[in-house]
């Protein structure tokens, strides 16, 4: 789910940092001071999600939550993702420091896709919050998985089987992530719908 250090060539991870910096800068434009605590809480949630494991026989998957980040924070998810990933790499060893840029780009673009889909649903999202949240999270995992597969595929002939395996490994993640995000969005819609509008106090 996260690309490790050492797999990508220096020009690729270098380009990843450039793309991630551009995305983060766009995520930060027009940020108001009172928005930062909310971004920080959801960054913490994004970090903690990788500690929540589910048994999906024959394997065990952990949550990603970038779909939820996209739904709640919109464009601001681009600020939460690099920080969450850096903390995961530093404290847990998930992913890596040199691949931070590439991972940020993959997760950032997929979170944005999920967020755009959720916003497109408009009123339907508040009437059917479970399905809207599940679809947005599923789409975000699918896009992240496809981008990761494309990255591995581009490394050459020998990596094609690994790429296929990586895509396959995303399917149980997609199922669990869609269910958990769907129920969480449904809960938030019932309890505090203001959180889902992407607006801050």
């Amino acid at each position, binding site marked *: 789910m996260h690309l490790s250090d050492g797999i990508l060539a220096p020009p690729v991870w270098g380009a990843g940092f450039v793309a991630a910096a551009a995305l983060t800068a766009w995520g930060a434009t027009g940020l108001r001071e009172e928005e930062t605590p909310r971004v920080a809480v959801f960054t*913490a*949630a994004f970090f903690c999600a990788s500690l929540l494991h589910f048994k999906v026989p024959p394997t065990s998957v952990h949550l990603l939550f970038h779909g939820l980040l996209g739904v709640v924070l919109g464009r601001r998810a681009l600020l939460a993702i690099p920080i969450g990933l850096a903390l995961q790499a530093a404290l847990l060893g998930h992913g890596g420091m040199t691949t931070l840029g590439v991972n940020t780009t993959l997760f950032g673009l997929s979170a944005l896709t999920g967020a755009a889909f959720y916003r497109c649903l408009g009123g339907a999202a508040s009437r059917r919050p479970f399905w809207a949240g599940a679809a947005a999270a599923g789409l975000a995992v699918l896009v992240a998985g496809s981008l990761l597969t494309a990255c591995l595929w581009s490394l050459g002939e020998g990596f094609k089987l690994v790429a296929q395996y990586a895509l396959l490994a995303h399917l149980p993640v997609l199922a669990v992530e869609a269910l958990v995000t769907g129920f969480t969005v449904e809960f938030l819609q019932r309890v505090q719908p203001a959180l889902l509008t992407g607006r801050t106090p």
Partner: protein
Amino acid sequence: MRAEVELFAHRTSLLHRWDARWKIVSLAALTGACVSLQQVSVAALGAVLAVGLLMFGRLSARVLMTRLAAAQVLLLPCLLVLPFTFRADPWQLGPVTISGEGFRVAALLYLRALAALALAMAVVYSTPMVTLLRALQTLRLPRLLVEISLLTYRYLFSLWWELTRMRWALATRGFGSPAAQARIRPLASVIGVSLVRSVERTERIHQAMRCRGFAGRLHTLQRFATRPADWIKACACAVVIVGLLWLDRGRGS
């Protein structure tokens, strides 16, 4: 959840005494060099040096082994596939064909990843998080990213504690059913409640911080000062980088 990384951050060693700014820059450059190596033997040397540096930090061997072992679980399965998917340089071992080239690539990727992980751990385990963030701020990381990182690091533990407490509460009330469907809905509610509570608490904390003059810039009592020892360590690091790259290119041509 305790901040395991902070347990060793206040010890004294060669690694701990190194000025955080120099440590970050030097070891980041060394990481960049290690992950761009192309020869297995040089990558092995890089990994040995990186793990050796980590041993200098007077960290608990048990904790380091646990962390390194956890990373192996993620890395090895992917790399074990490679000798079978490459075609070049085949070796016949009974009924199976193993590619020498695939084996070489797998070993290279593994050693590079190990070196990068060891260097990242060397920085994180030997520097308190606040000093690390302060050093990154001095190194011109945007103020906003430092501020959000600081707040995130603070809320991480309260959010995790909130989640753990509520999962215990669920378990004691018989919600520990092994069926995924029965577990996911209560868990999602727990996550939802934790998020709503944390958002409310965080906004109050942030207002309180702003009332007391916090304007987004991290201030600590830490004063960074470059001593001759910092220079010497950074120069040693530069020599290692040049040496590794020279060996790598020299062997390759």
